[in-house]
C-alpha cells in the first residue's frame, strides 16, 4: 500500500470521526469532505470504497444508534430525541429508524432497557446494521450524490 493510500485512509477516518463527534449538528457533505481535504464527489466515492458505505449512511446509523441509547436510557419523547440526534423531522426519523432497526422507535423503547456498559462499548455494540442495509446504502448513495446535505436528503429523495 502506497503512502498516498495510507494518507487517504487516515484523512477519511478523520472525517468519519468528525461525524461521530458532531452527529447532532446540521452537517453537510462539503463540510465533512473538507475535513478529509477532498472534493464532495471524491469524498463520497472514497469513503464508500474504504468503509463499505456512503458517509450519509454512516451518519444515519450513528444518529440512530444515539437515538436508541436515548430511548433506552431516558424518558424524553420520541420527537425530542429525533431533534437531539440531528434529524430535522419526526417523520423522516421514524422512517429511517424503522428501516435500519426493523421496528418503530416506540416499539424499540418498550422492548429495551438501560445497558450497564462503558460508553465506547455501547457505541460500537449497538450501532445498527439494518436488514435492508445493502439496498438502503445503494439508495442513500444515490441520494447523497444528488444532495449536498446530510440532513434529510435520503428521505427527501427516496421513493
Amino acid at each position, binding site marked *: *500500500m502506497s503512502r498516498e*493510500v*495510507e494518507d487517504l*485512509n*487516515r484523512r477519511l*477516518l*478523520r472525517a*468519519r*470521526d468528525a461525524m*461521530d*463527534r458532531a452527529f447532532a449538528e446540521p452537517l453537510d457533505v462539503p463540510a465533512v469532505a473538507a475535513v478529509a481535504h477532498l472534493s464532495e464527489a471524491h469524498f463520497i466515492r472514497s469513503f464508500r470504497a*474504504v*468503509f463499505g458505505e456512503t458517509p450519509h449512511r454512516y451518519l444515519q446509523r450513528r444518529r440512530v444508534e444515539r437515538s436508541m441509547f436515548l430511548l433506552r436510557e431516558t424518558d424524553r419523547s420520541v420527537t425530542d430525541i429525533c431533534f437531539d440526534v440531528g434529524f430535522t423531522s419526526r417523520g423522516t426519523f421514524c422512517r429511517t429508524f424503522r428501516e435500519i432497526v426493523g421496528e418503530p422507535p416506540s416499539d424499540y423503547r418498550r422492548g429495551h432497557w438501560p445497558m*450497564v456498559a*462503558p*460508553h*465506547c462499548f455501547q457505541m460500537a455494540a449497538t450501532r445498527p446494521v439494518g436488514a435492508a442495509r445493502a439496498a438502503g446504502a445503494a439508495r442513500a448513495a444515490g441520494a447523497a450524490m444528488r444532495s449536498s446535505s446530510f440532513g434529510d436528503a435520503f428521505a427527501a429523495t427516496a421513493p
Partner: protein
Amino acid sequence: MITKLNATSVKVLDQEEALDFYVNKLGLEVGQDIKQGNFRWLTVRVPGEPGTEIFLEEPGPPVHDEATAEQLRELITKGAMGSLVFNTDDARGLYETLKARGVTDFTQEPTDHFYGTDMGVRDPFGNAIRILQPKKVARAATA
C-alpha cells in the same frame, strides 16, 4: 493460573513517529529498545507501572510477509486494529495537556458517565485510544 498481562502490542506504521507520540505527546515512557537485524523490539509503558509493556510493532519482515504487512497497514489506517484503554486520575486535565502538546485527533472530548469520565483520541496512524478516569467509589467508614 495467569497472574498478569505482561506485554501487548499496537501496530504502527513508523516506530520513530510512534515513539514520539506515545512518549512525548501521550506521556508514556520507553520500556525496552532492542534491535536485532531488521527487527526492533520497542516498547512503551505507563510511568511507574513497569508490569505491562506495549510493543510498538511495525508490520513487515521478518514477522510478516510483504502482502500481509500491506493488509495490516491498510487496516491500521482504517482504524480497524483494536484499541488501547488507559486510566488517568484527571481526564479533563490530561485533555488540556494533550492539546497543548499538539494532539488534535480527538474522537471524544472528556464526557461524564455513570462509571467515570472518559475521552478518546487516535494515534498518528489511526489506532483508537480510550482514556478513563474511573468514578471514585465512596468507602464505608470502618471502626
